């Protein structure tokens, strides 16, 4: 910063001499700026402290070539934050100590005391938070129902474009991944069951196991988990970014309802697309199962698919597809809820998206268990 004429800039240095009258003089010279101190701050700090008691010595800082706040702070702290009685200093360097004096050091922050009740308090608070989320999700659902009635009454309000865009991004674009996952699950499940069934000679029951297992349980659950990860996170992140960029507020001030314009079409799209995806995934998974059954048990495709209607009553299909619709609504509600609650900062965006996906997958599995209990005596072959 300060070009000291043509003299080359030297490394920071400390020298202690004894003057004629017996007083110790501490000479500081060279560059005392961040570039020079970066590598030797600790050594210089201790060397300064070794130079002797602050007020017993004369301090000569006039040979310092470069100086800045960091350098001043190193010296200032060695002086225990007060100016020594005998100090020689260049005029232009005065300002750095002025800044040190002005700031008078920081108040040390007090570490938080250990609280033995902390785990209990944390648990309680998170329980309240969870209950709060549940209530808010319920409120959101209620608002959506009100909006749905409004839309039904006024056809002009219907957000068709958003709805069809949702069907495309949530449904059509997920066809590939759900087919791949469904096919592989069908193959694996069929292979594992075939091994067991062959032992007891009950080969033909492979159709029952695959049919009921995939259509009733695996198809809807696997498909919903994929959609929760794919579209749930996307919805949360999109709403979150719209919050950050104040787009949500912009909609509000135009008198356009967020729930009606953004959330309702998304929820409707998931509720329509997910059952279709479930049917698609189940179909592909059954094909995978049939392929595996042919390889493992030598069962022909005709035999497999012709015995399917007898083994799996039609109501199972409606159960599976219906589950898809319920899970879809759950995923949309949770994703939108967490999306609307994102604060305008990156941390909150990350936390909100994670929470949205984890909560919706958990909710799907819990709902699946509840539905399994409710429909436990429906859809079995007599």
């Amino acid at each position, binding site marked *: *910063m300060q070009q000291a004429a043509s003299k080359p800039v030297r490394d920071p240095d400390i020298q202690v001499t004894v003057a004629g009258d017996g007083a110790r003089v501490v000479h500081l010279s060279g560059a005392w700026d*961040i*570039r020079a101190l970066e590598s030797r*701050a600790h050594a210089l700090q201790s060397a300064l402290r070794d130079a002797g008691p602050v007020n017993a010595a004369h301090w000569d800082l006039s040979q310092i070539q470069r100086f800045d*706040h960091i350098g001043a702070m190193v010296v200032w702290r060695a002086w225990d934050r007060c100016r020594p009685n005998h100090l020689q200093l260049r005029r232009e360097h005065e*300002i750095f100590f002025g*800044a040190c004096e002005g*700031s008078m050091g*920081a108040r040390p922050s007090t570490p938080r005391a250990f609280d033995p009740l902390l785990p209990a308090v944390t648990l309680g608070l998170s329980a309240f938070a969870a209950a709060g989320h549940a209530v808010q999700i319920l409120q959101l659902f209620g608002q959506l129902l009100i909006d749905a009635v409004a839309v039904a009454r006024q056809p002009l309000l219907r957000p068709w474009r958003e709805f069809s865009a949702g069907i495309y991004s949530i449904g059509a674009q997920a066809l590939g991944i759900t087919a791949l996952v469904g096919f592989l699950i069908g193959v694996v499940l069929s292979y594992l069951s075939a091994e067991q069934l062959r032992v007891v000679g009950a080969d033909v029951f492979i159709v029952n196991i695959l049919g009921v297992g995939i259509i009733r349980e695996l198809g809807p659950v696997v498909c919903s988990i994929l959609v929760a990860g794919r579209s749930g996170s996307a919805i949360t992140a999109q709403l979150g970014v719209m919050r950050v960029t104040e787009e949500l507020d912009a909609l509000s001030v135009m008198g356009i309802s967020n729930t009606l314009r953004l959330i309702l079409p998304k929820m409707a799209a998931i509720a329509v697309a997910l059952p279709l995806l479930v049917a698609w995934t189940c179909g592909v998974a059954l094909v995978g199962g049939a392929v595996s059954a042919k390889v493992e048990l030598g069962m022909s495709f005709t035999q497999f698919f012709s015995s399917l209607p007898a083994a799996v009553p039609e109501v199972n299909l409606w159960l599976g597809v219906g589950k898809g619709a319920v899970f879809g609504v759950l995923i949309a509600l949770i994703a939108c809820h967490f999306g609307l609650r994102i*604060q305008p900062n990156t941390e909150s965006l990350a936390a909100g998206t994670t929470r949205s996906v984890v909560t919706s997958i958990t909710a799907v599995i819990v709902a699946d268990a509840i539905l399994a209990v409710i429909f436990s005596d429906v859809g079995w072959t007599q």
Partner: protein
Amino acid sequence: MISAEPIVEVKGLWTVYGDFVVHRDLDLSVTPGEVVSLVGGSGSGKTTLLRQMLGLERPNRGSIRVFGIPIHSCDAELFKRIRKRWGVLFQHGALYSALSVFDNIALPLRELHAFDADFIRDIVMLKLDAVGIDQRHAATMPADLSGGMIKRVALARALVLDPELVFLDEPTAGLDPDRSETFVKLIRDLHLKLNFTVVMATHDLDTLVSVSDRIAVLADQKVVICGRLDEVVQYDHPFIRNFFLGERGLRALSAAPALQAP
């Protein structure tokens, strides 16, 4: 000061996006200790030029030397050292939203791994003082700060390593006239005290008039003139007529001390 080697030197710079030429054979040089402002209409490439000086973007042709070192062709280790010698104030502050005010300012110091926590706290508080932020805001998160405070904290972060060169991108954009005046005064005071070099992109006339030593006008894809305010105003160019000699321009100029002297 004129004899000193330039701290930033741009030579024969070309920037082309597809068919669109942003900079055509552009030259600019900044001498140590001065405040140079880049002005130009929107789309004239001020911010692009600034980003190229920072090494965030690469020009299609030409060289940019900062501290005498060609930043786009030097080795990574050397460039890393250069980056510690400059400070940057981004247009919207670019504070890390996950970190508190204190941690934002402490981050560059901590990255050096040279100072202990206690020392870092002293330096951070000193810098907060220097930009006029009260110590009790140290624990605040950036999302809870007002626009003016974000700029101040971002300035403190830019200055925490006592840089020799400071880049300011639209320092007063988004501030009300009163705040922007105090902020400009703060920059001017700090510049006088600490004697760093400033390269600033702005289109705020008041800022321009009150802090710049020299003004570089970007128009027609190059620097049409780079000189003191009075030289720039006398240069005949449609952009300059529009920008400086419009109603707003004349009002700002009437406050400029440099022009009133004979």
